[in-house]
């Protein structure tokens, strides 16, 4: 079957199996390794992508059902070849340890800020509930998001 999607701004048509997930298509067929695989059942948030701007677990989405929707992975948020300011904030505030959850975390935060540009700490924590992290204890991730928001890095940052 053919999956149609707009991947990080580029229209793509990809030959897929009927039962192939978006995650499998990205990693196994297209070699898009900036999406990680953690649990394959939609619990850990490691495989998060933005689907028309909303966070989604790519392990739960059938590739063939995309029908032209926009898929954004971490590579899709970089600016002018440089880091997005939210990425800078994660680096500066020690929000990254093993880094396996980081791509999904970043995308979830960006989606949060789209509809809630000034979240407080509880709101940030609530938004990250679907993205597990086993290393950081979350505090520095929340610190990074807060600092980014405070630096006016919100919607237009």
């Amino acid at each position, binding site marked *: 079957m053919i999956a149609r999607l707009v991947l990080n701004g580029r229209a793509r048509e990809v030959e897929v199996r009927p039962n192939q997930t978006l995650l499998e298509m990205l990693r*196994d067929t297209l*070699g898009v*390794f*900036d999406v*990680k*695989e*953690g*649990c*394959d*059942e939609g*619990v*850990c948030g*490691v495989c998060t992508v933005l689907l028309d701007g909303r966070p989604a677990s790519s392990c739960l989405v059938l590739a063939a059902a995309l029908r032209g929707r926009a898929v954004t992975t*971490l*590579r899709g948020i*970089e600016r002018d070849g440089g*880091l997005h300011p939210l*990425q800078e904030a*994660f*680096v*500066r*505030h*020690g*929000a*990254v*340890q*093993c*880094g*396996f*959850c*980081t*791509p999904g975390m*970043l995308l979830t935060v960006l989606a949060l800020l789209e509809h809630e540009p000034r979240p407080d*700490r509880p709101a*940030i*924590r*609530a938004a*990250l*509930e*679907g*993205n*597990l*992290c*086993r*290393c*950081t*204890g*979350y*505090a*520095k*991730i*929340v610190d990074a998001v807060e600092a980014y928001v405070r630096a006016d890095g919100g919607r237009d940052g």
Partner: protein
Amino acid sequence: MADAVRTREALRIVGRPVARHDARDKVTAATAYAADWALPGMLHAAVLRSPYPSARIVKLETARAAAMPGVAVVLTAKDVPRNTVSTDVPGQTTAVGPLRATLHVLAEDRVRHQGEPVALVAADTLELAQAAVDAIDVEYETTPGVFTPEAALAPGAPPVHPTGNLLAQWRIARGDVARALAGAAVVVEGEYTTQLVDAAYLEPESGVAWVDSDGVITIRLSTQVIEHFRDVAEVLQVPQNRVRVIGTYLGGGFGGKEDVTVEAYLGLLALKTGRPVKMVWTRQESLLARAKRHPYRLRYRTGAAATGEIVAQQIELLADAGAYAYLSALVLLYSTVTAAGPYRVPAVAVDARVAYTNNPPTSAMRGFGAMQTVFAYESQLDRVARRLGMDPVEIRRVNALRRGDTLPVGQVIETHVALPELAERAWAALGPPAPSRAPHVKIGRGLACNFQPYGRIVWLHDWASAWVGFEMDGSLVVRCGCPDVGGGQAASLCQIAAEVLGVGLERISVHVSDSALTPLAGTTTASRQLYMSGNAVLKTARELRAQLLTVAASILKTGVDDLDVEQERVVARDGRTLALPDLLRECARAGVPRSHLGVYHAPAGEPVDLARGSGKVFPDYTFGAHAAEVEVDTETGVVRVRAYAAAHDVGRAINPQSVEGQIQGGAVQGLGYGLMEEVVVENGINLTTSFSTYLIPTAADVPDVAPIVVESGEGLGPFNARGIGEPPIGPPAAAIANAIEDATGARLTRLPITAERVARALGLLDEG
């Protein structure tokens, strides 16, 4: 202390919260984890695992599976050149005497736990490999199993192994415990139960292997121990120098990637097929098959004088090793040595046993036996304090170890013990008590301290090596076989090299974790890498600096002691400078090496006879104190942690931001252990093999942990640092239990402390 402060002021890069190079790579997903790797013609591998916890294999036919189109090979035990892998002490040290532990690579005539590997398949696609696994014709005849250590040690229990079910026993006897208990003002008795727990890192076990163009079997995987290349070579029956392990930056380890995971399978399949092979465990497989943290039953009798001074501890520990030994004997040793806590206790008796069962195997996990004991000894101390009406900080101050004290095992504490300061600061950090939001919601506070060894047992004669060298343009290369599990191991090595050699961090490339191309540095376990590889890089960089400055001194016609290196220049006391590239060219001309290989040997010792309390077991310890404020809903039993502070004396923080991250992350893992995590096993069957049933803390489950970094300037690591990887996971469960008693008067003694257990303890549910 004064010395430490003065030295810190003189430091340029060490001690600063600099951004880690790997963090930059990780936020852009440039980091290629083990599964982010593919080679042309690559096969995909899958494992057939036993569905039964105890069974004989009566039939194992692979012909049908092997004949399926796209299937490259199917392997069983008879195809493995040497079907035994040693699992006792991974790494570069081997002198473990009676602790030798082994494992079949693939099951032979019987299986001893659910998930035990029976056969391997490699095929063109993962789907084909899984289909071939399903097509293997295997029949089992189930046999009686044992599923608790008590049952395993009962007379007539079915033996898990021919050697019997008692895997190891350690004893400590110091002073006259019976007499001290008889004379104590208070005696508190308690029995505590800790649960089976999974490392639950987000990156499953994974790797890719290929036979490289030089014939070397190369395995690129997520591992805490690249020295397993030797174990793979033994399995394959090839010389050790024909196997290379490339360790990737890990997506978490926590001890779960200390034992062999995918590497022996990958080596076998690559060798048999001649093609690249990839193996990635599913989450279910990871939760099913990987060794876990030991559940313990801990029985304590603690006697104290009216002053609060502990006079005796009588301790009985029983742990569940599961079906194979792995590192259980050593885990139990850590429990034995730490059982009486970081306190002066004149009379101590410990009887510690670990038994084989047909449960999932247990082995290393963050804390390594020194964390289960914290729950017991800190619960006991809290109960003593309550009986005596003492403040929790005060009873710890009264009892805290001091430099020069002797542990029950006979080891003398040689460094500063900051415990009273840590306890005070953690307790004070909770701030003024918050009001309860409703009459049925009770607020309480708890304190718990711990000590955790860092560095390996001294009789393992630990060492680490590193190579440091300049390129001709003055940029620096650091090579060290240290796996980076995400704690900033590699970045800390850069900071140390930059400090000594006067180059900026942006001018350093660090290569880690390659058994062929980086000097071996041992395991990233036991909170040892900053201590060991850090010392190796420090020593190597200092020797390289001396080597280069000798040449610079002759050029500048001054003494070596009058020279410093900063910003890639040699600077003389009189202000003259020599650019590093000029010095390096002169070194090349004069035949003086611009690189250096150095080895750091940890202080070594001989095995101790525990019962005689004869000496040193660990190089040193890291001390900590955590304080928690909880609210308990007395109508539902739900516990919420409102505030949490965690203080540790890290000697010196090489990177304070990384240290805080270890403390916060470790404390939250400890809160998961205390409140929610449990691998549920019924008659050997794991019922929690997904992240929807094995629950770890989410961002919404835990508060901000306030990290308190204390730098006593006393530690055995570089610049007097202590290890901080494991220590923060120890105190949380006890701090929570103590806070719950403070709030409600109910004492919880079984982990995890779920709402249901709290409700039972509060009498809200019928017993049963």
